[in-house]
């Protein structure tokens, strides 16, 4: 038996055990399903509302992915700009921090007014982007600065241009930092998309957050749980996709991803 097999098996056994206990406790204790539904009831609710929940999942997923992609592009681009000019970094970095530390819930109404109530999707996108953007910016900035000084000197000796230095040295050296930032930011984009929908409401399509609110208003607690389950699964999928990407990009050369065969 390999250790990776156990690493999967043990948490799965714990999960199944917990579900069985949950099912038994709720059934024996006769807990009403609007307080705590049994796993089987949640499963039934999921199947019953599968179509509408999946389309809500798709709406949330679309906003999450778009916000995440824009955060990666914007964060890396701005970090590159910072690395080229200390002056630009000095001028703009404080504002990036302000954007980061201001709670997104507090900005939501303002953004909603600015983009207009018939553009809620855009508001959701902006809010999720704000949450996801900073880790990429901050990690990439750090990565671009963490290049071995001797390698920088070597590039100077060989008369490298700014562009050559960036492309052949700084960006590859920053890649582990960028991917680390992406792993944080992927989860944050999902949180941003959900929180934004709670605050700003739903756009043309209904996302999972709105389904949770809706089901809550009608005391359809099993459906709430079903939506929650889908959100967790989505978060886990994003995390694993980014971990896989990191592994594929770094496995050959970076200390963090090299399998040392032990």
């Amino acid at each position, binding site marked *: 038996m390999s250790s990776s097999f156990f690493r999967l098996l043990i948490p799965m056994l714990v999960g199944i055990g917990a579900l069985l206990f949950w099912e038994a406790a709720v059934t024996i204790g006769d807990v009403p399903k609007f307080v705590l539904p049994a796993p089987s009831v949640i499963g039934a609710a999921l199947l019953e509302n599968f179509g509408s929940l999946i389309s809500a999942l798709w709406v949330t997923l679309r906003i999450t992915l778009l916000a995440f992609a824009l955060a990666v592009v914007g964060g890396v681009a701005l970090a590159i700009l910072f690395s080229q000019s200390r002056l630009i970094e000095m001028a703009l970095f404080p504002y990036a921090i302000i954007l980061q530390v201001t709670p997104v819930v507090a900005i939501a109404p303002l953004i909603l007014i600015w983009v207009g109530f018939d553009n809620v999707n855009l508001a959701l996108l902006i809010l999720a982007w704000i949450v996801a953007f900073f880790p990429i910016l901050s990690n990439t900035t750090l990565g671009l600065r963490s290049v071995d000084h*001797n390698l920088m*000197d070597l590039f100077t*000796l*060989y008369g490298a241009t700014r562009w050559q230095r960036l492309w*052949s040295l700084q960006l590859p050296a920053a890649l582990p930092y960028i991917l680390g930032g992406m792993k944080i930011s992927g989860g944050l984009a999902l949180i941003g998309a959900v929180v934004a929908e709670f605050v700003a409401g739903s756009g043309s399509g209904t996302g999972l957050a709105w389904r949770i609110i809706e089901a809550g208003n009608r005391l359809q607690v099993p459906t709430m749980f079903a939506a929650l389950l889908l959100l967790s699964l989505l978060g886990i999928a994003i995390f694993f996709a980014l971990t896989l990407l990191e592994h594929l990009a770094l496995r050959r050369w*970076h200390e963090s991803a090299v399998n040392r065969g032990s």
Partner: protein
Amino acid sequence: MSTSPPASDGPLLTLSGVGKSYNGDAPAVADVTLSIERGSFISLVGPSGCGKSTLLRLIAGLLQPSQGTLDWEGGDRPDDLGFVFQDATLLPWASAFDNVYMPLKLKGVSRDAASSKVQEALIRVGLGDVPDRLPRELSGGMRMRVSIARALVTEPPVLLMDEPFAALDEFTREKLDDDLLTLWRDLGWTVIFVTHSVYESVYLSERILVMSTEAGPGQIADDIHIDAPYPRGLSFRQSSAYFDRCKAVSAALRDGDI
């Protein structure tokens, strides 16, 4: 691979009153005047903090002198100096081949056009059969060989080495010392070699510049010529002539420190 030295009898490089201080601190290098002949093998020896690395960086143009001038034969600094650091300083994501190709790539030479030169440089350092390995798949000594191959691929007139073998075990180090001497004799380089090892400097060099911290910070305390013939091998390493010269250099180092 041969450099074509312009016919001239003058020194390759002349330093006149060169000094360097950082932010008004005590100078790291002070009032260094010396000339370096083309094709010579010179070591800079001294304890940590004596300014030998700073002097090397001034010669490389990585630092600008606070006082004095550096005059290269022909006017300008050659634009492809070879530089070897204490660590191999390789791109960890690039193969041995791509690391050696890097200086040529930066000069705009295509991969195909550079291929034979890169391969030749790898063969010269004894790594012709592992061009595809990444740095982490190579031993410390092999990484240093890649670093030397990278320095020689541009056929530089001058090779600057900053304690290049200090982090290696003694066996590997002696092997690399011998291989470096062979390359130097084959290629007609001028080598400026920074080390804190008296033994290594005596074995390698024609001329040793002893730097000290006490006698005057960042100054050259002594200029010693090692007149033993090349090739130098194990018999030289074990000869009494070798030990006498090591003693002389050690004495010069101690004098400087009083």
